[in-house]
């Protein structure tokens, strides 16, 4: 006599400890197994793109900090690249080095948040999260030294960075680089051989490569599925063609590979930062641009950057006035979520939380 069961629809609602922001998932369960998932967005929609149309080009920069509020440096970099393409401006070498240095430090900080909260979703009560945040705290102190703010940095300006790094920034950076490898090793020792982490993440939420490419997935999620596609390598911007780094690749595309790819990327980013410190020479940190920028009318540009979450792009259209006519933001978190249904259907509630955590979304960027 088969037991009569009926699917129950649960709102893993906008207010839930592990949806990484205000994401609402309307999930239909058959027991613990997921039958259907429908993500619902818009709870953090601030209309950034419409706001951008009534601000001048430097004021829009303060908007970009608040897109992916965990990686605001890379948002600035993407926007500044788009404006520089629009204006045809050449950024001085030192400015490019400072940008790459800040962006890579921000990538480390963002991946630490991703790894820390993934372990929090797995159930390790905040201990790995604290170790990750302790390491991130050191990076945020460097940002405060660099540009006066820790999270909403608005450090970069079209044409370079707003000002050169203060003299006592470089010794502090060397101190961080010295102890960084030991902090990463400690994190790896705590996580990567832990049998419970292995059994919870291996072979869970497998994303085949073709599905990933078809669903325009980018960033560590795509790399974990087996393709070494990184915009810093494929279409180098700033000084990424002068620094040596390799792109970590996973083989199965499951949660464990995504976790491992992120930790590998942290190591590579630290390598890039130390190379930047060696190669940087004195010089102007910012191109001579007028205070209020006026790109030529009818010009348009698509600046893209390998943000920690994936390919972050700004499509700017100018009509000759001091404000962009249209500023479209290609947000990696929103597009990485298109693959959520393929990843979740057929798995259990506990796997859903871990897979959502391993995709590493940021609602500020999804809802803009």
């Amino acid at each position, binding site marked *: 006599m088969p037991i009569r069961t009926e699917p129950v629809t649960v709102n893993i609602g906008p207010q839930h400890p592990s949806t990484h922001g205000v994401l609402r998932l309307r999930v239909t369960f058959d027991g613990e197994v997921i039958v259907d998932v429908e993500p619902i967005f818009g709870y953090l929609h601030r209309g950034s793109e419409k706001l951008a149309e009534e*601000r001048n080009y*430097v*004021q829009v920069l*303060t*908007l970009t*900090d608040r897109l992916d509020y965990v990686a605001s440096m890379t948002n600035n970099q993407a926007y500044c690249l788009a404006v520089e393409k629009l204006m045809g401006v050449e950024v001085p070498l030192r400015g490019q080095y400072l940008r790459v240095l800040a962006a890579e430090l921000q990538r480390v900080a963002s991946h630490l948040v991703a790894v820390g909260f993934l372990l929090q979703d797995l159930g390790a009560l905040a*201990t790995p999260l604290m*170790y990750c945040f*302790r390491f991130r*705290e050191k990076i945020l*102190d460097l940002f*405060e*030294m*660099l*540009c*006066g*703010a820790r999270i*909403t940095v*608005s450090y970069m300006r079209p044409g370079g960075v*707003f*000002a050169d790094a*203060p003299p*006592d920034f470089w010794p502090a950076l060397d101190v961080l680089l010295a102890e960084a490898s030991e902090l990463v090793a*400690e994190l790896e*020792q*705590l*996580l990567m*051989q*832990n*049998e*419970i982490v*292995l059994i919870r993440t291996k072979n869970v939420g497998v994303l085949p490569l073709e599905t990933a490419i078809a669903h325009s997935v980018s960033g560590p999620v795509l790399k974990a599925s087996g393709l070494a596609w990184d915009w810093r390598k494929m279409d180098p911007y700033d000084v990424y063609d002068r620094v040596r780094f390799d792109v970590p690749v996973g083989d199965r595309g499951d949660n464990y590979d995504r976790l491992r790819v992120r930790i590998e990327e942290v190591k590579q980013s630290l390598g890039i930062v130390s190379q930047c410190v060696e190669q940087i020479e004195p010089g102007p940190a910012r191109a*001579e*641009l*007028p*205070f*209020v920028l*006026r790109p030529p009318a009818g010009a348009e540009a698509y600046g893209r950057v390998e943000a920690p979450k994936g390919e972050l792009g700004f499509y700017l259209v100018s009509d000759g006035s001091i404000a962009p006519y249209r500023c479209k933001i290609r947000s990696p978190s929103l597009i990485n979520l298109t693959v959520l249904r393929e990843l979740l259907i057929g798995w259990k509630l506990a796997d859903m939380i871990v897979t959502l955590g391993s995709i590493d979304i940021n609602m500020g960027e999804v809802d803009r």
Partner: protein
Amino acid sequence: MYGFGLAKGLMVTLKNFINPPFTTQYPEERLPQHPRFRGEEFAWYEERCTGCASCAKYCPLGIIKIVTSPSETAILEGDKYNIDVFDIDIGRCMFCGLCVEACPYDALFMGSGFERGRYQREELVIGVDELREAVKRPSSWFRPQLEEAQYDPHTGEPLAWEEVGREQWPWHQGEKAGARIDWRPRRGGGEPPEDGA
């Protein structure tokens, strides 16, 4: 084998259990802050401010309210205006510092503290009198002259308007913030613009 990974994890937590804690106890101990920190209480020098409201115009949120009245002395020589109202609503401010960047006369500086919390929203508006009497410890954000002077707002002495210095930004010569003048060559060459419109 089954247990080794778990045991290694336990060793990591034990090591951290023994090491001293990383956190500081906030009110008693304080973290060292960098002079460039964009603090809350603005440092505003009335002697330098001409009431041109470039800061109010350049603020992305438009939260600076300036009301000026023509000063009685020497109006024709373009004497400076009296500033009657200079409100900065730090309840809505995001401390991006664009107003400090836009000020052509280095009259407005970011503050260096972050403890100006109040219970009522109205009290979050910094009025002109509070700006006048405030102890002026300007942050060195977007003010390279303070940085070259190694001035640290958290430990240093308050600065009067003469000692705070002024930076000759390239764009401040030929162009008032917001006005539309074609882009000047490097500040070394070229004479000041004729019309200055």
